[in-house]
């Protein structure tokens, strides 16, 4: 556990030198956030009925939560796997004292950490100063605690999903199509550009209980009915984490058995 945190810390420390990258990423983030906010404000004025589906403030917080998590860059795990498998560099990483899958997860988390922290501060600041706090039917501290728990667990689930996508590279010539499919399902059911509350009921249920919606469940914590949905969200994410971990264990053992090291 300590080794893992230390690994992430070292990678994050190394990535500090790329200040320019983080600055421009954050500029992009704020511009896009303000842009979405302005557009949705206009949409809510044009279609007042949308307030019944999801209040404007909650829609803004939900989208800003999605883009905040986006900068952690967990989806890049699959690309890391793909590059190593296609280049043959995977052999090099197998010699290290930490498991290959863990190495890739730690590297991605470390590289995205500064962007994620910056995006979190900016998302919260922009959303708060523009629309105030979202309407949540519970106490502030319960909400914050709930958001933190769901944020951490949902990102664990996202890691597992993209590790599984990456592992398909051991069998496919190119695992990019799998990545496209998975990331787009997460984009739709995570409520990236369009909040899930605007979807028909059946799709909302699918989003909440599928692993794709579960991996971005932090957006659902911004909905007014979060206190009622919290146990279900938690159970859903924990369920998919357990299923995912079992699958990673099974698939990775098959994958590494298939690997031929040429030296």
């Amino acid at each position, binding site marked *: 556990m300590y080794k893992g945190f230390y690994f992430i810390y070292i990678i994050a420390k190394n990535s500090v030198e790329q200040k320019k990258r983080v600055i421009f990423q954050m500029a992009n983030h704020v511009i896009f956030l303000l842009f979405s906010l302005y557009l949705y404000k206009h949409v809510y004025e044009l279609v007042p009925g949308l307030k019944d589906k999801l209040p404007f403030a909650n829609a803004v917080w939900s989208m800003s939560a999605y883009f905040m998590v986006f900068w952690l860059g967990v989806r890049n795990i699959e690309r890391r796997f793909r590059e190593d498998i296609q280049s043959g560099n995977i052999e090099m990483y197998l010699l290290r004292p930490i498991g290959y899958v863990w190495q890739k997860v730690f590297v991605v988390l470390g590289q995205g950490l500064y962007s994620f922290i910056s995006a979190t501060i900016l998302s919260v600041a922009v959303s708060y100063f523009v629309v105030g706090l979202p309407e949540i039917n519970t106490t502030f501290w319960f909400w914050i605690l709930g958001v933190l728990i769901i944020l951490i667990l949902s990102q664990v689930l996202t890691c597992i999903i993209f590790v599984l996508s990456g592992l398909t590279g051991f069998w496919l010539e190119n695992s990019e*199509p799998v990545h496209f*499919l998975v990331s787009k399902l997460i984009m739709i059911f995570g409520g990236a550009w369009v909040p899930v509350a605007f979807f028909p009921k059946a799709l909302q249920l699918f989003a909440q209980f599928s692993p794709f919606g579960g991996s971005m469940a932090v957006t659902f914590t911004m909905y007014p009915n979060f206190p009622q949905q919290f146990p279900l969200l938690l159970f859903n994410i924990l369920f998919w984490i357990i299923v995912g971990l079992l699958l990673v264990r099974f698939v990775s053992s098959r994958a590494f058995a298939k690997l031929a090291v040429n030296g």
Partner: protein
Amino acid sequence: MKKDILYFIAQTKYNIKNAHALRSSFWVGVWSMVLNNFSFFIMWMLFMKATGPINGWSAMDVFGMLGVAMTCFGFAHGFFYGIIDLPQFVMRGTFDSVLLAPVNSFLKLSGSSFSVTAYGDLLLGGVVCIIYGIYSHFDFYAWVLFIITLILGCVLFVAIRLLCALIVFFMHDGEVVVMQVFEIFLRPGLYPGSIFPDKLKIFCMTVIPTLITSAVPIDTAKFNSIKFMLVSLSVTIVWVLITAAVFRISVRRYESGNFLR
């Protein structure tokens, strides 16, 4: 000039042939992008279902708009992918090979690299545009306006893509900045054109001309508006001229052996 264009066509032809040699990989790349793009259709269809028609735009218009955006993206990345790789050329100092070739530098650069997945965008975008035109019962005049604005959109997309890539000549480690700046241009164009307030719409048609590559061809054909086409034409000319000027200045700034820095 004719010689340069013929060279560019030959380069593109060989790029496609080359990629098609690995047939299964080629088609997997194309179809995966088609599948990938469907997600945008689904997302915005669900949005339009929740809101109903906005400012005269139905779900079908959003469908057409995404088709236009995909065609422009696919055109730029399918035939001019070399400009996307320009930052790498400059950072590694291999831009020399482009400058030393006895053909137009822009055309030589454009055809020097290739993206299979862009053909998925182009294929799907083209099909969607045709379906949209047929479904919307375009008359001959609307088809002409639509095609002209679509071509202008494609040209503008290439110009903006190149302009973003040119940042690398002015900034050390500019590679990381190029993508972020390009995304600022790209993203607004993926929102339905009808939800833009007037001022923002004008801004996104001129200063960040993303709507020219997505919503404007739809508005032009939908309202048979020559005014929209003229705006599109003027904006495209201005941005192409700016890009050409910046390209000349950038190339003069280039020094061999950048990799040593």
